């Protein structure tokens, strides 16, 4: 409790925590909040700009928020498709309208979404992509992947790193040398190069769940070595402590000493390292998907949504496609701030640096 109070005393950390909570709520309830499903696509409406929402009607009076549908036209003079608003029919925004069916929280089947429009109105808060899919809805669904990949990878990295570093540091000698040389070799390969190679050799005929799981594993494979090295360094000094010697005298097994007495001593470092390394996993996943090597279409992830923003025409005329980049930025920034705050609290030496 003391810890949480301290954390919330920091204005920035509080804001970061709030933003992250909102982001996670959004992605947990993505089915409900998003007006469309992640696979909904309207082929007639590729690259439609964001829907304008009006609260003041043409007579200048306050009105319930409404929007107009878009009509796609080909403009021969400009030689491109243009979208014009269909001004003859207003579509009012409604709370809890009926939409595509889904299972709320994966259990309760329902058709209700948080908001939407009535009778055939289209609501694209952030426009649509090349396949006429709603960018806003896909952002929420993409967040499910982008915001969880980091944590899942950490769940693999930390046990491996702790055990590897623990064993290496505890035994020392030739075992230590061999294990550390191997970890150093992994670290000596430029991590992004290794990442793209591992991602590229994944067979192509996988389901999206398998692919997601393997991306998590690959990210973990890159990250464990650096962590294990630091743990080893800590174990080297911890094993000199009296309580470890005492355990040895009592006759506790080696594994027990490592798992029950040495590794718990590294807890505060582990928590700090964990919060500080989540952003790098988010960045790695989005970078990989951005290159087309990570999460594949039709699944959404922030990285692969940003892939479309690489084309010059999209950069110039369809800036709404950049939205996923903004979200990655916000998520990473919040994690960084939160991580810094946690470090300052848990690591008394860090107090000096504030």
């Amino acid at each position: 409790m003391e810890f949480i109070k301290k954390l919330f005393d920091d204005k920035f950390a509080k804001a970061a925590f709030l933003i992250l909570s909102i982001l996670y709520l959004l992605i947990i309830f993505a089915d409900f909040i998003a007006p469309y499903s992640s696979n909904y696509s309207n082929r007639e409406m590729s690259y439609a700009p964001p829907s304008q929402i009006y609260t003041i009607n043409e007579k200048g009076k306050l009105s319930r928020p409404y929007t107009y549908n878009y009509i796609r036209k080909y403009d021969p003079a400009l030689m491109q498709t243009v979208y014009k608003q269909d001004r003859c029919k207003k579509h009012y925004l409604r709370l809890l309208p009926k939409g595509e069916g889904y299972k709320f929280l994966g259990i309760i089947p329902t058709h209700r979404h948080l908001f939407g429009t009535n009778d055939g109105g289209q609501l694209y808060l952030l426009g649509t992509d090349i396949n006429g899919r709603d960018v806003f809805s896909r952002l929420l669904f993409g967040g499910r992947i982008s915001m969880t990949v980091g944590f899942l990878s950490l769940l693999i990295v930390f046990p491996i790193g702790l055990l590897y570093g623990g064993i290496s540091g505890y035994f020392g000698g030739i075992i230590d040398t061999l294990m550390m040389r191997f970890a150093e070799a992994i670290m000596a390969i430029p991590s992004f190069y290794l990442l793209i190679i591992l991602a590229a050799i994944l067979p192509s005929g996988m389901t999206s769940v398998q692919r997601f799981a393997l991306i998590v594993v690959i990210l973990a494979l890159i990250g464990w070595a650096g962590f294990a090295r630091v743990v080893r360094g800590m174990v080297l000094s911890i094993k000199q402590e009296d309580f470890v010697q005492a355990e040895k005298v009592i006759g506790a097994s080696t594994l027990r000493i490592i798992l029950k007495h040495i590794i718990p001593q590294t807890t505060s470092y582990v928590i700090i390292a964990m919060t500080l390394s989540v952003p790098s996993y988010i960045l790695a996943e989005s970078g990989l998907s951005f290159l087309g090597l990570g999460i594949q279409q039709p699944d959404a992830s922030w990285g692969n949504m940003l892939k479309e923003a690489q084309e010059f025409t999209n950069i110039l005329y369809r800036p709404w496609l950049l939205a996923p980049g903004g979200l990655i930025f916000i998520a990473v920034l919040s994690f960084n701030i939160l991580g810094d705050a946690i470090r300052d609290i848990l690591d008394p030496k860090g107090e000096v640096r504030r």
Partner: protein
Amino acid sequence: MEFAKYILKRCLQTIPLLIIVSIISFFIIRLAPIDPLAELRLNPSISQETLNKEIKRLNLDKPIYIQYFSWAKSFIKGDLGYTSAGEKVSTKLKERIPNTLLLTVIVIFMTWIVGIPLGIFAAIKKGTVFDRILTVISSIGMAIPSFFFAILMLMFAVKTGWFPVGGLTSYNYNEMSFIGKLIDLSRHLCLPVIVLFTISLSGLQRQMRANMLEVLDSDYIKFARAKGLSEAKVIYKHALRNAINPMITLLGFEFAGLLSGAALTEYVFQYPGLGRLILEAVMKSDINLVMASLMMGTIMLILGNLIADILLMITDPRVRKTSAEVQ
């Protein structure tokens, strides 16, 4: 003499490291379900003769460990084989590595020139408006994904038309005068350098600030102040020297980070560097090229660390002493 001995020892230490790296990457690539010659086979301009030569060079008809030894043998001899387009891998690498080195060296140089003073300044003026603004800016710099920032810069370039987009040189580069060439090069380098510079500057500035604050808090600085030294002397003569040493160790890591960050930036800007080369090679499953550029990237990284270690020996007498004791 001690010095030369130490460097020699460090160089020798990298050899087993390189061998392990090569084994790891070779097995990762070879155990993947990819036919290393698939592209070559499909390429009509590649004769059966070249194909047979490649099969023989890589010993593809023999077990994998023999393949590794034969690969390692030809790698040491400098024979890296052919790309799937039929070019020599070594010429391709010779073309790309200098470009990546140029980019990273410029960026490291610039970040140090700007980042170290900024870090020192922020530490001295800790808690002031200046320090707060710097902290905010560096948080932003650390959080923005390199490829997203690169896209934003690209957007800026396309909209304003101030910078050329893509490549390293213009199409009429060969006709330019020397100064014209220089200007053309720097105009092309501008955007990638800005992207990488901003991102690595933030980290460096923060680290320097943290080091400086830690040193300023130590007893010998308090003592220096207590005996009445001027503030300038305390900071530049006593604190700075100690705060900068950890930064030199970081130089190697910075180099590693830049190699990775550069890959995405190179990809977005279509910059002809090693990162983009390996990406293209990976997408085409061009095994020879992937293997060779992976090794080159690793060698560059190890060399970067080596240079950082040697620099540290020059600046930090303690390291010199302990390394002498080891021998």
